[in-house]
């Protein structure tokens, strides 16, 4: 019993950490540019497929190489998607709904392209580190530890970026006051594209990390989009701290509900908690209106 509870808590922590990485990415785009990205889940799958492709090439059998190659690809991809698809819509009055539509179309396009290119069968990635700690009946695989450390590291790196680099500071400035930021000479358009690109990298990295545990499938991103979205709304849209707390709460909730009632109930429980939270605090745990 105790061992089981320990297992559940650990799986909640690990899933929570990866969800945090991905939810922070989603909340970042929303916080900075008020755009909602429906193709976020497809970018998650894209991370997994890029890693799968790189592992197919003989020389790259190393995760470090994969991360170093996948990150720039995702960064450039995200940047151009924003410049080509989202930026032209910004001038319109009803651009919010148009952005939702265009990213939904993009998601459909990407998901089905994966299916045509890679086939509908699920792809697996090699484990990042083999082996496990074993203390009696209690087993903690190194893989889980590495996933946890890397996602938390990613979030910390991102925090450092926001607080200590020029681009990061301009991202924060635009999030706080777009007009004011423009007056002091911050290139708003570039910041929008940059945040989109960074969030693409974050979710793609999350995709590579989780793909070792849960496989890569063409439509697998939807589940992730829904979870990242729930976490973002739960923690407060645009609030990175709220997103962090919410991610771990959701990870734990999911693990415990899945353990006690079965996986079918996790989504229902998730939405029940979300709706109750939103009924009491419409802005989420730590969000602000605006």
């Amino acid at each position, binding site marked *: 019993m105790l061992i089981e509870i320990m297992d559940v808590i650990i799986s909640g922590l690990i899933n929570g950490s990866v969800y945090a990485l991905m939810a922070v990415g989603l909340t970042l785009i*929303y916080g900075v540019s008020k755009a*909602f990205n429906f193709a976020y889940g497809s970018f998650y799958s894209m991370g997994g497929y890029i890693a799968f492709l790189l592992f197919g090439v003989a020389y790259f059998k190393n995760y470090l190489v994969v991360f170093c190659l996948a990150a720039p690809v995702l960064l450039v991809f995200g940047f151009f998607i924003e410049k080509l*698809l989202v930026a*032209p*819509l910004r001038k*319109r009055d*009803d651009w*919010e*709904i*148009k952005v*939702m*539509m*265009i990213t*939904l*179309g*993009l*998601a*459909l*396009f*990407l*998901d*089905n*392209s994966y*299916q*045509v290119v890679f086939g509908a069968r699920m792809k697996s990635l090699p484990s990042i580190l083999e082996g496990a700690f074993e203390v009696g009946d209690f087993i903690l695989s190194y893989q889980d530890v590495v996933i946890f450390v890397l996602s938390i590291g990613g979030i910390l790196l991102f925090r450092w970026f926001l607080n200590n680099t020029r681009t990061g500071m301009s991202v924060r400035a635009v999030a706080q006051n777009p007009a004011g930021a423009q007056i002091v000479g911050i290139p708003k358009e570039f910041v929008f594209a940059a945040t989109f690109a960074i969030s693409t990298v974050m979710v793609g990295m999350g995709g590579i990390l989780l793909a070792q545990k849960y496989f890569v499938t063409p*439509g697998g991103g*939807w589940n992730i989009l*829904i979870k990242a*979205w*729930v976490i973002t*709304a739960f923690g407060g*849209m645009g609030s990175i701290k709220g997103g962090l707390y919410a991610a771990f709460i959701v990870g734990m909730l999911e693990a415990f509900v899945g353990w006690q009632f079965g996986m*079918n*109930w996790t*989504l*229902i429980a998730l*939405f029940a908690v*979300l*709706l109750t939270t*939103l*009924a009491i605090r*419409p802005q989420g745990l730590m969000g602000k*209106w605006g």
Partner: protein
Amino acid sequence: MEHKRIAKLLAVIWSIVAVLPLFFGSTNFIMHILIMCLIWSVVASCWDLIMGFAGIFSFGQVAFFVIGAYASAIITAKFGIPPIFAVFLAGVIAAGIGILVGLPCLKLKGAYIALVTFAVHMILEPVLKGGIGRAIGTGGSRGILTIQPMNIFGYTFTSSEPVPYFYLMLFVAVICSGIILAVIKSHWGTAFLALKDAEEFASCLGVSAFKYKLMVFALTSFLTGVIGGFYAHYVGMLSTRMLGIDLFVTLMVILVIGGVGKFPGAIIGAFITIAINEMLSPLGSFRPITLGAMVVILVLLLPDGIVGMFEKIFLKKKKVRSLN
């Protein structure tokens, strides 16, 4: 667009649609597609009413459609109520659920509403497949395989003879579009627009956001539920596959092509989209890719849809004339 012009456009569209069976009446396949066009045109118009006019990002329209379809099928099977009444009961049930969904949305804004309504869509599948659903009679993951066909006063509509059902659906679609037009034209429509454009100002002037937002939820989910019931009795079987992303995106393409907030646009969009969808079916697995690419390109090139494009051309001409 002016209401008179919408009414004229509607009359033209529906009278063109009404004569289509003269050409295609003998081909069951095409008649089936036309019936589907009518059904989706109503669903898309309702979505347009709530999203385009009232400015509420409701993503639960497919869920209300499925709720209506299941409700009508279960009511006829369990209580022996004739389908023509069951369809309206299904609409009432969908409207009830719509109001329940609308209540938490009253306090929320933008993307939050999209999430809550989409949550209804996502939850529906596990609920229908799980223990609760099986207890009501949804048949779990197998779905409902036999649904009584629609009959009115002893006349039974069968799917092997689609022309009578086509006219029934046309009748329903005309009434639904009439209702939507009446709503847009009335005090309600103005209130929706006011709440969309400036909620605080509108409520200061005494426009009750509570009342009108719940009203639009109730009305659109009622109409969608009714049309869902008609769909169930026409197709004769239901499963949760409808809740997949395919149908959702098809509806979205309809709105993109027709134009968001350009009312009869959704109806034109439905006919064009379903026709394109059928024409693309030889492409097999490339069909959804093309559909996705189409959404992206259309949103960029035709942001106001076909109706918006014609409006622009028409208005430009008018300006030139007045200059002369």
